[in-house]
């Protein structure tokens, strides 16, 4: 069973994704800010991370950059979730090492497809 870490300061999104991912058979862990998200990623070694961009303490791109700098988490697939959907933002998101990018408001069904595709690729 793949383990997925959801890091988002919005309780609605966190809970909605938890229910959806758990229903699809994934093991789900959630955190509500960048700092605890980073700590959880180090400890849990998830198979995939869903990461919000704008969060207290550490932003999504900052978390992503730190994950890529550490041997243990360097290859964990990361999907950035964000309301920042301008071309420059997307480029910045990928530049931090994110594997995919979902703009808010988002389609949970589309997100599930991307999660499945990324997990299959990282296999």
């Amino acid at each position: 069973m793949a383990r997925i870490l959801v890091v988002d300061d919005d309780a609605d999104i966190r809970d909605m994704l938890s229910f959806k991912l758990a229903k699809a058979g994934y093991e789900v862990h959630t955190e509500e800010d960048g700092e605890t998200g980073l700590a959880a990623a180090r400890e849990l070694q998830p198979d995939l991370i869903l990461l919000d961009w704008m969060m207290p303490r550490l932003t999504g791109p900052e978390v992503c950059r730190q994950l890529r700098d550490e041997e243990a988490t360097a290859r964990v697939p990361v999907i950035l979730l964000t309301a920042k959907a301008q071309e420059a933002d997307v480029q910045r998101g990928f530049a931090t090492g994110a594997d995919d990018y979902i703009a808010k408001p988002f389609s949970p069904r589309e997100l599930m497809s991307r999660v499945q595709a990324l997990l299959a690729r990282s296999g």
Partner: protein
Amino acid sequence: MTRVASGFVAALVAITALLVLLALATAVRKAMRESRDRRHARVEAAVRPALLSYLAEDEPDPHELDEVVQGRAAGRSLQELAAGLLTKLRGEDRRVLERLLDAQGVLDQARRRTRRPGPVGRARAADLLGAAGYEAALPELTRLLRDRDPDVRAAAARALGKLAVPSAVPALLGSLDARRAVPAGVVTMAILHIGPEAAAPLADGLSLDHSGTARAISAELLGRLGGFQAAGRLIEALGSDPEERVRAAAARALGRIGVPRSVPPLEAALMQDASASVKQAAAWALGELGGTRGFAGLTAALRSPDHALARRAADALVSCGPLGVALLQRTAATDEPGSPEARETLGRLEPAAA
């Protein structure tokens, strides 16, 4: 002396009794509020997981939550949770949520809540109806555009934008001129939200039956939404509208839309309009259209004694491409009118080129 003392004691007793009553009333109100909050939290604790679980399913039945959502408190809780979620979702999951709200009667409740005495309730109802894209609520939301509370009027305008139906445009334009008006920025954003389909009613907004504000905003938005079918109406407004802000907005819109047949009327506005702001807007628009078709007008404007217009013409010539830049370079090398503006514009170009 004894009467004074007894009067003092009586006053003291009365004040103490009043203070005790006040303290009691405060304590009762606090207890009631806490009890209401606890009840609300209890109801939400039951509704929230049921709603999230419902959304996690692929093809849920909208009546699946009938058992959980019973009573006014549960209905209100579902309404609040759903209103928050709707703004965060798109695609099929959003439609699933909309169907649920419809099936649970929450949207019809919200329609009725648009008549609540309190403005917060009316504004929340408008927010929910807009977030849910509930087109059946068009009459209620249109009515709220004339609400006595400015926040409710703004919420109604935003909600109409989210419904994304072009038929809301006339009411939104009308709300700009009402005695209880909606701020122009709110109306503009709402119509932009409706998208390109708003172009046809916006073209009607150029008619002189509307106020200058409504006509100017219609013209500006036609440019932003690419209403090329309205180019004829915009050309007409550029040539004949009595208000300069409308003519200037029409010129900018024509520049953004980029229809070639707008070059002659834009040149005419550049040369003949009495307003400096219209001339400047026409110069900018000719630059946006590009090519050499507007050269005659722009060259004449470059030599204008109006420095702001000459600068705008110089910038527009740069936008026209290499031939425009060459013309500026030739002018810059002389002492003719327009040469200072040509040098200034070329000077700004050089660091960028470097």
